[in-house]
């Protein structure tokens, strides 16, 4: 991105550019009808994507926020109830269970970047068939949440699951309210770790080898080389994997739906699933919109953070 920016500023700043009738910068050197034509073209190119995105993403967000102030079952008339939905929410135990589980997801899911880094360091070698090995390590990421959920429900099955074979006796992981969430998170880490691994592997290959060699010359080895020389170079990968892991953790739905259905006794539910449950099972659209808005507000912090960085590197 930086190169693109430099190039643009050079070309629009060069003296030759202003004498040319066509230039990138608006105004200077571009005749008025041409300028108008360009603006119209830009609009035409943006219109289809903009229209679809507004209809299916922007409008629903606003609509959900408005809906959260109403009581509605999807059929009869909406009744304005102000903040009653939110008030009910903060007096519901399940809301706190969901919130606690969301936090648990967030914390434990953040194990994915360091473990992914460990995998990347382990696999960053040139030996025969390494490409294939890396791809096989990565393959859980391309499986759908439903398939991962099924694989792990069966892995945990207390009667005949692989876990029973490994530890020697059956543990009803998904049927126990103390273990269910941990069981689901462990399953979710299985595809998330290779994703972080891939980000780190790509970043590792892009590091300038001279920096590492210079570190070695200075006498840094192993751990201190990693900590003081390599890790700072891996910051882009770390940033991406942390942000995407956080967003992934807050979005978790598929695995919970397939593995536990939020149970037993709502013990493994999260905001995303709680919201779905209220809408689909109980037709409490206003109330579930309120849950979605709370989730949205939590996520907004990370969205803004990611966005600011993105636009900053762009400038």
């Amino acid at each position: 991105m930086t190169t693109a920016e430099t190039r643009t500023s050079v070309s629009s700043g060069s003296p030759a550019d202003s004498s040319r009738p066509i230039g990138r910068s608006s105004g200077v050197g571009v005749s008025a009808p041409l300028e108008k034509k360009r603006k119209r073209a830009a609009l035409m190119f943006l219109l289809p994507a903009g229209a679809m995105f507004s209809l299916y993403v922007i409008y629903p967000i606003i609509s959900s926020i408005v809906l959260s102030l109403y009581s509605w079952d999807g059929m009869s008339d909406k009744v304005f109830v102000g903040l009653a939905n939110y008030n009910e929410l903060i007096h519901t135990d399940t809301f706190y269970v969901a919130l606690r589980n969301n936090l648990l997801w967030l914390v434990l899911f953040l194990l994915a970047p360091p473990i992914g880094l460990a995998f990347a360091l382990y696999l960053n070698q040139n030996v025969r068939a390494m490409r294939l090995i890396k791809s096989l390590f990565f393959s859980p990421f391309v499986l759908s949440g439903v398939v991962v959920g099924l694989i792990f429900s069966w892995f945990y099955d207390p009667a005949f699951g692989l876990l029973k074979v490994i530890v020697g006796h059956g543990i009803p992981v998904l049927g126990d309210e103390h273990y269910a969430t941990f069981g689901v998170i462990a399953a979710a880490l299985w595809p998330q770790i290779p994703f972080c691994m891939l980000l780190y592997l790509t970043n590792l290959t892009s590091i300038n080898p001279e920096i590492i060699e210079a570190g070695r010359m200075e006498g840094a080895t192993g751990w201190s080389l990693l900590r003081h020389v390599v890790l700072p170079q891996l910051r882009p990968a770390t940033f991406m994997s942390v942000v995407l892991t956080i967003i992934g953790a807050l979005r978790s739905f598929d695995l919970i739906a397939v593995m536990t259905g939020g149970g037993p006794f709502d013990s493994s539910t999260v905001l995303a699933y709680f919201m779905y449950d209220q809408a689909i099972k109980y037709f409490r659209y206003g109330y579930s919109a309120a849950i979605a808005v709370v989730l949205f507000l939590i996520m907004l912090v990370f969205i803004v953070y990611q966005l600011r960085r993105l636009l900053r590197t762009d400038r």
Partner: protein
Amino acid sequence: MYPTPVHRWSPMSRGVYKASLPLALVIWLLPLIAVFITSMRSTDELMRGNYWGWPERFALVENYRTVLFSSPMLHYFLNSCLITVPSVIGSIALASMAGFALATYPFKGNNSILGVFVAGNFVPIQVLMIPVRQLTLHLGLFNTVEGLILFHIAFQTGFCTLFLRNFIKELPYELIEAARIEGASEWQLFCRIILPLIAPALAALAILVFTFVWNDYFWALCLTQGDDAAPITVGVAALKGQWTTAWNLVSAGSLLAALPSVVIFFAMQKHFIAGLTFGATKG
């Protein structure tokens, strides 16, 4: 290079390293391997409790045939194709136009529009659920593949636009200027100059969007009911209820559902990884 390349290690540790690779791989993929072996086990063997011993008889063909023809699996599979392919084409078409506009025309609000596209892609999808469901109902597209396609196109467009806008920005601007001097209209410029140049980026995106849409479960649950338009993710989840004890069939079904994305990933690895790690080494 970090860590120290193996060829500089002592022969002993190098040997240990090389031996550890297949072992680590087997442990890592154990759940998947186990599912694969189970999908080949015959039903009577499972009934007798032989879950983990070596299968006495391989019932691979038999199991996969049962899944394909004695359940609506093939129908779900077809639905998934009907949903995924148009969604990929649609979102990439829209995003390449929008990306082109954002990369080449310096109008006011350019950056904010980009910001909205990106932010929209990170919102929790649950906040969209009820309004999108209502919208689809009003359009008369509830429980149809078209309803799902329209949503996927719109939602995937955000991410694709950012990706393509950055890619187009990296192209030499002189090319665009030259074409304009030659008298090309903006539309010709887009079709004849830009599109061929961004073909590799389009390929990378197509593969990514394919896996995202193919693996979607949430929207399939929200926008369909019953079998008519349900994709394979819903079908597989339903198998679990239909054949509670027939894990060999559930396993076979899961593997069938996973097959297209796995095949596409291995066939087009380079593009897939290029798409996914875009941005990982920048900033």
